[in-house]
């Protein structure tokens, strides 16, 4: 599975790594829904660290789209809310 970290590029994860990331994604999602900035920062950092350490970098000239995308590691909760709000505009 290809994962993008915004501002950093794409990483390829194997199945086991992807499953671990899904758990971290669930935690991240919970913090975003709760609007808990501190917990969000921690969850985002954990997810970013997992992708960086376990994934292998996708070559720069690859044109593959990512299956999931992580916000920029220094993103604030507010920025993520704004990013997700585009959901309604583009899809609706």
């Amino acid at each position, binding site marked *: 599975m290809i994962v993008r970290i915004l501002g950093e590029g794409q990483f390829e994860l194997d199945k086991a790594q992807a499953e671990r990331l899904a758990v971290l994604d669930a935690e991240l999602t919970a913090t975003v829904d709760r609007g808990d900035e501190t917990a969000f920062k921690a969850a985002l950092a954990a997810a970013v660290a997992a992708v960086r350490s376990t994934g292998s970098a996708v070559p720069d*000239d690859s044109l*593959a789209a*990512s299956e999931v995308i992580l916000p920029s590691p220094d993103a604030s909760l507010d920025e993520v809310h704004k990013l997700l709000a585009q959901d309604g505009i583009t899809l609706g």
Partner: protein
Amino acid sequence: MGVMKRVSLIFRAKANKALDKMEDPRETLDYSYQQQVEMLTRVRRGVADVATSRKRVELQMNQLQKESDRRENQARTALGQGREDLARSALQQKASLQGQLNDLQGQYSSLQEQEEKLTLASQRLDAKVQAFRTRKETIKATYTAAEAQTRINEAFSGISEEMGDVGMAIQRAEDKTAEMQARSGALDELLASGALEDHVSGSGGDYIQAELDKLSIGSGVDDDLARLKGEIGGAEATPQIEAGSNGSAAATEPQDDR
């Protein structure tokens, strides 16, 4: 649905929306390529802009450091003259300058980070744009509508995601530099106004330096006075001083004995 999946769907929706606007898939390829090249120019300009801001902050840091060193020297001179009050004022000034320096150091690091990120983003996009160009020509050469559409969609969603990412990175860098430009503009004005420079004249100027100058003039006068006293008193004092020595002193000895 998880946040990470939602974000990827947002990027994909944007790509699809752009694709839907095109009647002829081949038109999509050329149009998209053109946009990619424009985005490359934008990101390179972004790198240059951030570098300019970083260098400006660096210059300001050098100026502040110089000023801080000068205050330290003033404090040392003042202490040497026994003026602890002046030394204290100079060190207070230095502390305030160091505070500003720390603030600038933070800005500098942040700009450096943005610059590195954008440079890498520009390299990634460059590689992807080249790959897209090759893919585009292949697709056009082997064009059969049904097959092309799938392959175009594949290539397009990948590059479109990269473009979206780079666009956001540029926006972040622009926001950061704009914020810093406002602050460093204010500091430039302060530096230009001479508030931090050496000004002996005027009540708002550098009174510490003025006091030290007075002290150094004063001690220069004292030195001169001592020298002159020595010269005048020399006629009386010389015999005593030279009494124990030999050579030329010998001539004065008879006078002393009388």
